[in-house]
Every structure is written in C-alpha cells, then in structure tokens.
C-alpha cells in the first residue's frame, strides 16, 4: 500500500516536471513584411504588426533592435 502511494507521488512529480519542461513560449507573427510603396520625404509613416503568443508559456519581448 505504502509502495503504491509512493509510486503515485513519484509519477505525479514526473508528470509535472515533464509538462514544465515542455511548456514553452511561442511567438507567432502572421505578417512579417510590409511594403509602403512610394512615400514622400520628410514624413513619418507607420505600420502595425500583430504579435500572438501561441505557446504554453507567456512570450516576453526582451529587446527590439532597430535594423
């Protein structure tokens, strides 16, 4: 009986550990490029790209490097 309970506890811990290892953030961007075409000089233009978090864990944006 004791052995059975221990087995269940070990199994539960193992399952939790495996699911924690598997939990991963996943960033999905349906659109990654945008062409503005012709634009005048001395103007500010803008476009919104949508970012979706589709993983098991939250996506954290650590840094955006202008390119």
């Amino acid at each position, binding site marked *: 009986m004791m052995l059975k309970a221990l087995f269940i506890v070990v199994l539960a811990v193992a399952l939790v550990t495996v699911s924690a290892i598997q939990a*991963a*953030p*996943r*960033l999905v*961007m349906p*659109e*990654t*490029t*945008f*062409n*503005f*075409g*012709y*634009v*005048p*000089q*001395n*103007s*500010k*233009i*803008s*476009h*919104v*790209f*949508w*970012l979706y978090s589709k*993983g098991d*864990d939250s*996506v*954290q*944006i*650590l*840094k*955006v*490097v*202008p*390119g």
Partner: protein
Amino acid sequence: MEIIFDTKHYTDKMSKRPTIQTNEGPPDKYVQIDCEVVRRPDSTYPIIIKPYKLDISQFGEKVRDQMKFTIMNVSDKPLALSTVGLPTDYITVTLPASVPAGKSVEGLIKLKPDALKKEFEKSLTIQLDDEKASRFTIPVKRSLRLPGDTTRAANEPVKTVDTK
C-alpha cells in the same frame, strides 16, 4: 507592435528590418518594412496624390475632423484602388473603387471620435491593380492648438511615442 519610419531626406528604395528578441530563444524574429522615398511626390506614376501629405491639424475651437484629397490617374488605363494600410483606431477613409484613365477622383479621411483630442503621425497606404501592384503611402498628421493651451510653444513639433 507599431513600426514608425521617418523618411527624412532619404531617396530611392529603403528597407528596415528590426529584430525582436524573446524568451522563445534563437533564432530571433524580425519584421521588415520596404518603401521607395520620392523627392517629387507631385510627379509620381501612374497616379499623383494631392496633397501628398495630409495635415488634419486643428488650431482653434472649430473642429476639423475630415480632409479631402485627390488621386489623379496619369496613365492610359483605368486603375482600381484599395486600402492596404490604415490606422483604424484613428481614421476612416472613403475611396472610390477605381479611377478612370486620365481622370481624377476624390478621397476623404475622417477622424474617429476618439482621435479628435489626439495628436498623431500615421499613414495611409493605397494599392493599385497595375502590373506592379504599385503602392502609395500618404502620411497623415494631426496637431492640436486649442484656445488656452499655453503648455507648448506654437512652433514646437509634435512629439510621437511608440505606443504599441
């Protein structure tokens, strides 16, 4: 995520490719914007947009919430017009479906009620159905000077902040 690009005095084709680093790990993600900065927007082809920048600023109490612009087809073929980029939180645009060869049509931008008390610099992108699927982007700017607003000098530029 909003990408803002200042065309400054650039000329010809430009590409920008900001990289996004996340806790997802490598490889980094990126977005890319492309454009062709023109020095003479009053002589583009196959359409000419006038005015090529829309300034819907309000100086005073009289509410200014819309502005017309003209699209002139300087080619010998009719062109279909579609909107492919629009700051939907700020404006709506009314555009004819097409512009006949050699003719002009009128477009209209209208501020959304929530945008009336905001200052912004956004842009509107129109695509044609010509063989190149040409695109033209019209900058749209709004500044506010309401009576009694002494917090800013008259010639101080509008500050823009990345909000998304």
